[in-house]
């Protein structure tokens, strides 16, 4: 029953999204995969094969860095959840009205400032001549300057700092929707604080926990700035390796394979997270 003009309108609306998704998302990723399975056998001569992936698994530096990036990202996600949950709970359940809005907006502040600036801030704080080192010397806790930069702990601090907002916001949203009377009912029926947390609050917050964890994990996995700047030259982050292959070594075939492996890992984690929570991607990501 659609009239010709509304059909035309429909196609006019369909055109930009198709152009966007096909030209900028779908084709580039297909291209990436195609390049990742071509092996250079001579100047401008290629042959299809999984040689680049074989190189990845054959060289311990590569796959160890990959595994290290994944494990550190998981640790950063867990840490962010543990640190962020009490804050989200405090904002959602223990504050009201103006205080609540203010605290919530304060959590958003890091988002308004470039990641580069945030990381730079941590460099000023953590380095040998930095503020914390000076402060510790002033307190007399240490005798000489301490270098707190360029280690895994510094990377962790930076990752948590950068992504905590993406954990707190979905948690506040889900915890806000938990009716206080459910918590009261839990206590009224004899539950202890721990039992109420475990059996009522956390199951209710699960959707927020899952979407927060997915986002934080992805951001950590794909982060480049924080590990390079806070972890130093030997930070061994997988995105750094992709950069090296592409820009320094100009080995795009191997770089593409690396990129595809990273993409596969992050997709796998998103998939597992969604399976675990039994929700669709649209439900989890569609509410920003």
């Amino acid at each position, binding site marked *: 029953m659609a009239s010709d003009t509304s059909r035309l309108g429909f196609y006019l609306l369909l055109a930009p999204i198709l152009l966007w998704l096909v030209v900028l998302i779908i084709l580039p990723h297909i291209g990436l995969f195609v390049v990742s399975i071509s092996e250079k056998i001579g100047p401008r001569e290629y042959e299809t094969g999984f040689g680049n992936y074989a190189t990845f698994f054959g060289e311990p530096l590569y796959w160890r860095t990959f595994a290290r990036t994944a494990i550190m990202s998981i640790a950063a996600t867990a840490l962010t959840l543990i640190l962020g949950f009490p804050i989200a709970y405090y904002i959602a359940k223990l504050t009201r009205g103006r205080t609540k809005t203010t605290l919530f907006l304060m959590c958003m502040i890091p988002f308004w400032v470039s990641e580069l600036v945030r990381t730079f801030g941590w460099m000023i704080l953590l380095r040998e001549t930095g503020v914390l080192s000076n402060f510790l010397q002033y307190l007399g806790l240490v005798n000489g300057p301490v270098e707190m930069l360029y280690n895994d702990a510094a990377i962790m601090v930076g990752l948590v700092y950068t992504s905590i907002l993406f954990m707190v916001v979905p948690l506040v949203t889900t915890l806000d929707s938990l*009716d206080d*009377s*459910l918590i*009261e*009912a*839990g*206590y*009224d*029926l*004899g*539950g*202890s604080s721990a*039992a109420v947390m475990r*059996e*009522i609050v956390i*199951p*209710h917050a*699960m959707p927020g926990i899952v979407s927060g964890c997915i986002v934080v994990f992805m951001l950590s996995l794909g982060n480049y700035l924080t590990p390079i700047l806070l972890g130093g030259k030997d930070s061994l982050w997988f995105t750094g390796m992709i950069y090296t292959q592409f820009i320094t070594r100009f080995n795009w075939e191997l770089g593409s394979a690396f990129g595809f492996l990273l993409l596969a890992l992050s997709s796998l984690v998103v998939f597992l997270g969604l399976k675990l929570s039994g929700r669709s991607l649209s439900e989890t990501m569609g509410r920003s």
Partner: protein
Amino acid sequence: MTAPQPDLVCRDLTKTYDAFRAVDHVSFDVPQGSFFSILGPSGCGKTTLLRMIAGFQSPTSGDLLIKGKSMIGVPPNKRPVSMVFQHLALFPTMNIGENVGFGLRQRRVPKAEITSRVGQVLDRVGLPDVSARRVDQLSGGQKQRVAIARCMVLEPDVLLLDEPLGALDLKLREHMKVELKSLQAAFNTTFVYITHDQSEALVMSDNIAVMNNGRFEQIGTPHDVYHAPDTAFVAGFVGDANKFHAKISAVNGSQLTLETPAGEPIKVEAPNPNLSVGQDAVVFLRPEAIALATSDIGDTVNGSRGEVESVLFNGANSTVTVRGGQGDIIKVALPQTGDFGTLRKGDTVFTRWDPKKARCYPAPKG
């Protein structure tokens, strides 16, 4: 020990927020196994009172005893009371069996025993075989019964109910009133029920406390509260009543003579020692206390002639509003015996009422 100890005792319980006194020196006893209702308009402090009993608010002063033990400073999860919340607060992340078993799990009751006790209590509320269902698969009335079962499985000394029928539709609410009463009788547990709906309170309760502005106006049986209200507020809040202002012109023992602003004399027989000649008073008169006649019955006490203003047919609760000679309007119950089937607007009718059926109180100041 002559009388058995009451399950719940409140002594001068008071709760003050800044300058506002939500609950003002409330004292009452609830005997074991009785159904006690607290009836009052919204904002009268009944919810605060109930939440103090449950432990979600602490009294500013006064004492609260359950089975003789003071509950001051005892957290809600350590009190032998359970509460049915206004919106029931069934845990949506658990199925029915897990909901009902929640309290038992907190007490570390063995798994097998939990299963059997959950099954038993669900049987008793008439819902066998719903254990595995999700909360949103139940109807409103079933959820209600699950919420009660979830509390009753813990065998509390006192069950608190916070207007649980409010969210149900009218038909189901009527049905649940009867059911709640029979559940209470079956479990023989003390129920404390708060509501703003007088019919719920009247139908179910052994005793009703009528609450207003943080104070108890009257505690009594439904019959007392309806037929012998202690205060003007109770008379106006419980049941339907015609209310008119008058000035007392003579006092003779319990016999009062009053004069309406229009100059009509009325006689009331009300034992109220606070009334004296010249004082402004309010008179409450139930619609069913007024006798209606289509022909003149002569000059009787409190008799008058009027004109039918409107007929409000509502089955057994039908009423007619009558405009008196001075333009005053009174509401009269319309007996459905067929005698008045032909009554129409504008018809002349005669009303009279027994001085003993009316209640008279000092008019509020200002």
